[in-house]
């Protein structure tokens, strides 16, 4: 640009730099104005906050008004990375890689407490304490989660920052200041930053030296009762009466008659099975006509540290045809090399869950076809759910921590860690010698390919964890023959934020807000499931009004979740955003009600053991009535009018992703997915909880089991939910909303309980073991999204790549719940 610059002689008073500034200011104004209103964010979301980011783009908040609606799926076209949600160690290499791929000028917004500094999950073993440890962050948005408006405020802050930049100063036009690519963190025994290798080596040398010193010290006062590091007092093992119930005894006798003596021992209402004979017992229970336990719903491990045998694997069995259950099987394994034979051959639904038990507890399952780590990565040091595992920020075995009060001088957890990060490495580890264990990819042998005419090869395609249509950080390793899927393996764990580990350190009440963050579309449902499970152990009476409020909240949640599922599914089928915008609008109105009742849009934290947290006003009920009786039915009609007959939708979904009912049950599929293949299994009917037995509603059933039915069943179920809402809003009585005394401290009687509810996504179960103290001994979440993924490969085989996306969308997974 040619601009006349006044010569030195004419204006001798003004220094040279300032003269240039007058000109540059003009250029800067235009340059920055252009950049401020054309920020292109990357389509990139990690956790709950990402939902608020998506919502900020929809009708109510309309990010387009800031010129920032053009979200790009490719980092190479984007200039803003919004790190929205918990950054896990497993995910951070990908985040850094994506950042490196973005062209300059690039900006980073850390959205929410987790991305800023680890948030409520900071203490977890797989959580990074803030993305700014790895990337330069421009704007931080506090909040958990920030509301969409708070996000927009952050965006405005970023615009202000851009406005303050000058074209003469910005580093991306200066050769000497251009940023080098950020070294990508490596997944070792724990995550490590290549920039820290020297520091790590030094620290480990120090630790090794310290260890020998400590050993000699220990020898010196071997007689002295020096408490072992970590567990300061011996944990109180859970104990309860194990005399067998009549049913358990009868069943055990039957098994003994059929299969021989000594296979099972009845313990209370559960059956203890010899670990090596599980398959035999399992087959008997599944195949005997009047037992027919065809659904293995939950598999989990428990670590009874201090008891022999130390480990226990617990199985919850149900019968979909008889509606009976749960039958609880247990198998025990010793501390040294614990092994329990795999049940995948009897119930394929054990597949992912057994891998999880191996990953978190280190119990091996001989006979499992693919026993790899699932939530963490191959090479991770230790099995974190074991009671004696200590993460980097470990403070005490249980909360509340003594350091907080009465002498609670604030200290950051980072400041106590030698690497000022949330990482810990085994002493004997040497970073130089280490080569990362890659996720093994399927290698295709050319021999098993047909050699007719053209010679083709199968290829392995890696979709995710950063992909616009995987609903978050989910990865699929797909083996393709041309465009057809031959095999598929889901890879999860990119949002594994240690929910269960933190849950076992938390007090009983403290877990309630954490459950909000499981399936972040359905916090009310998550709350309800947890409250019901704990109430099984507690003896509390729930007042009528609270029961009704629980049903109202949970059913609104179902409508909301199903509508959002339709919106997202249509996005994935290519009908980008129209259905999603319409459904988000209805969601916003329901969330307004939630905010008024509970205080938060998404993270409601509304249920308590014995009732609910707050009462609602008559005005609230009137508005809820209007929504449930007039607006939402109309909107569901509208959604059907928009979609149900649409030829493109029908062509894309009819006959795609079909699985037979028995395969679905065997793979542990529950919820709408199961009812879309014609199995009438609804927990509200089979095992009514709360006051669901009082309502008149149908269980919709479809029989094709294809994508179209999975879409349609959601609409039908949403209608039934509205029917329940109508009755609940009609029948809600006046009265108290809480039974008993509100106490912040809570001791739960020793025992075990499995509580489950019909979640919008399937069976949401909580398996709890209490040792009679203020903290759960075992806290396990049986999440429907995770277990529904077991059948993903079955559903996808033989279809095209474009269909995988839709099939995944129809399962309706939420990664917060898949990875926990």
């Amino acid at each position: 640009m040619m601009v006349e610059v006044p010569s030195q002689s004419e204006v001798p008073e003004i220094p040279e730099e300032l003269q240039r500034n007058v000109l540059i200011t003009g250029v800067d104004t235009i340059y920055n104005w252009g950049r401020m209103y054309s920020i292109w964010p990357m389509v990139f979301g990690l956790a709950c906050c990402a939902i608020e980011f998506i919502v900020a783009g929809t009708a109510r908040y309309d990010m387009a008004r800031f010129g920032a609606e053009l979200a790009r799926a490719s980092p190479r076209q984007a200039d803003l990375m919004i790190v929205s949600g918990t950054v896990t160690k497993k995910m951070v290499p990908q985040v850094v890689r994506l950042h490196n791929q973005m062209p300059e000028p690039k900006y980073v917004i850390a959205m929410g407490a987790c991305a800023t500094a680890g948030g409520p999950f900071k203490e977890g073993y797989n959580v990074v304490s803030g993305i700014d440890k790895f990337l330069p962050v421009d704007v931080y948005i506090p909040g958990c989660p920030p509301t969409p408006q708070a996000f927009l405020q952050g965006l405005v802050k970023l615009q202000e920052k851009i406005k303050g930049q000058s074209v003469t100063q910005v580093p991306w036009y200066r050769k000497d200041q251009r940023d080098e690519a950020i070294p990508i963190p490596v997944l070792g025994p724990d995550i490590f930053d290549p920039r820290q290798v020297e520091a790590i080596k030094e620290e480990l040398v120090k630790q090794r030296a310290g260890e020998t010193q400590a050993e000699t010290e220990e020898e010196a006062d071997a007689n002295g009762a020096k408490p072992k590091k970590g567990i300061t007092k011996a944990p109180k093992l859970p104990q309860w009466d194990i005399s067998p119930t009549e049913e358990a005894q009868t069943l055990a006798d039957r098994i003994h008659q059929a299969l021989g003596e000594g296979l099972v021992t009845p313990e209370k209402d559960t059956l203890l099975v010899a670990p090596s004979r599980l398959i035999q017992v399992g087959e008997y229970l599944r195949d005997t006509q009047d037992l027919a336990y065809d659904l293995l719903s939950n598999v989990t491990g428990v670590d009874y540290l201090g008891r022999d045998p130390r480990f226990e694997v617990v199985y919850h069995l149900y019968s979909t045809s008889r509606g009976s259950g749960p039958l609880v099987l247990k198998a025990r394994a010793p501390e040294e090399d614990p092994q329990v034979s795999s049940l995948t051959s009897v119930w394929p639904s054990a597949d992912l869950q057994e891998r999880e038990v191996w990953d978190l507890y280190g119990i091996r399952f001989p006979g499992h076809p693919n026993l790899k780590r699932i939530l963490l990565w191959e090479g991770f040091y230790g099995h974190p759910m074991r009671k004696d595992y200590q993460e980097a920020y470990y403070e005490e075995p249980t909360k509340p921590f003594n350091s907080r009060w009465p002498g609670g001088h604030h200290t950051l957890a980072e400041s106590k860690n030698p690497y000022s990060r949330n990482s810990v490495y085994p002493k004997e580890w040497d970073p130089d010698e280490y080569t990362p264990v890659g996720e093994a990819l399927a290698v295709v042998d050319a021999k098993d390919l047909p050699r007719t005419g053209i010679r083709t090869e199968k290829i392995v395609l890696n979709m995710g964890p950063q992909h616009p249509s995987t609903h978050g950080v989910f990865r699929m390793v797909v083996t393709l023959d041309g465009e057809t899927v031959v095999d598929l393996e889901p890879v999860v764990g990119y949002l594994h934020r240690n929910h269960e580990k933190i849950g076992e350190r938390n007090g009983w009440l403290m877990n309630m807000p954490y459950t909000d963050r499981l399936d972040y579309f359905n916090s009310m449902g998550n709350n309800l499931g947890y409250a019901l499970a704990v109430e099984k152990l507690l003896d509390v009476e729930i007042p009528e009004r609270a029961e009704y409020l629980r049903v109202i909240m949970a059913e609104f949640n179902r409508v909301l979740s199903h509508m959002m599922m339709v919106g997202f599914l249509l996005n994935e089928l290519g009908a980008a955003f129209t259905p999603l915008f319409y459904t988000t609008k209805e969601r916003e109105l329901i969330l307004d009600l939630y905010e008024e009742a509970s205080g938060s849009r998404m993270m409601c934290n509304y249920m308590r053991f014995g009732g609910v947290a707050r009462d609602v006003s008559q005005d609230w009920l009137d508005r809820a009535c209007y929504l449930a009786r007039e607006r939402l039915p109309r909107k569901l009609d509208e959604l059907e009018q928009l979609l149900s007959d649409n030829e493109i939708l029908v062509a894309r979904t009819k006959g795609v992703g079909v699985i037979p009912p028995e395969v679905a049950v065997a793979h542990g599929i529950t919820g709408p997915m199961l009812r879309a293949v014609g199995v009438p299994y609804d927990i509200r009917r089979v095992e009514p909880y709360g006051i669901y037995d009082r309502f008149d509603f149908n269980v919709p059933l479809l029989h094709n089991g294809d994508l179209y039915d999975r879409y349609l069943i959601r609409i039908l179920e949403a209608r039934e939910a509205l029917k329940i809402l109508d009755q609940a809003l009609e029948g809600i009585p006046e009265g108290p909303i809480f039974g008993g005394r509100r106490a912040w401290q809570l001791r739960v009687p020793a025992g075990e309980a499995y509580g489950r509810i019909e979640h919008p996504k399937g069976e949401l179960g909580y398996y709890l073991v209490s040792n009679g103290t203020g903290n759960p001994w075992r806290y396990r979440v049986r999440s429907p999204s995770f277990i529904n993924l077991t059948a993903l490969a079955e559903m996808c085989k033989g279809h095209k790549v474009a269909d995988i996306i839709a099939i995944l969308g129809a399962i309706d997974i939420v990664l917060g719940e898949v990875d926990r």
Partner: protein
Amino acid sequence: MLGFGVVKGLAVTLEHFVETYIDDLKYFPRRYSEEAMESRQRVNGRGIFTVQYPEQELTHAEAFRYIPFLVFDEDKDSVYEGIRCTSCGICAKVCPPQCIWIVRSLDADGRPIPQPAEFDIDIDVCMNCGYCAEYCPFDAIIMDHEWKLADYDRFDGHIHDLERLLKPASYYEKIRPIQYAENNLDEEEEEDEA
């Protein structure tokens, strides 16, 4: 007939498009007046749903909770005397992510006095669950409505100390009038009984 389903769907989008303009006519010529915005956010609202942030803002319900703050009563001689918190520590103990740090005041003899000497909340750990406020026996810690917290630096200001946390009771009354009135009533009743 092939294509009819698509046409039906298009009719829905057209309806949405037209509807916004019909609603605008009601508020002609001011499309985005406060009154219009408010009516459009209701459950029976029609028309354009967008809130023109930052010119307009969505108001929050009384129960809305964001980062907590500490209340001080203004009728006392100094701010410090007005602090309602007695440093009993319930909030720190009930806090799920353990983001509250309290140092209890001690008198000259080393006996505890019901005043916090230090009070820190790490807002980068806080999960806005509201337990601290819910279980506080003195109505001393309250969940705030202030959500405009985005900034450029987290090391200077994300640990809220006593000075930052303290807000007057009149502010509490402003953001939560119903709760404030209810709790005041309770206190008066207690005083009457005494």
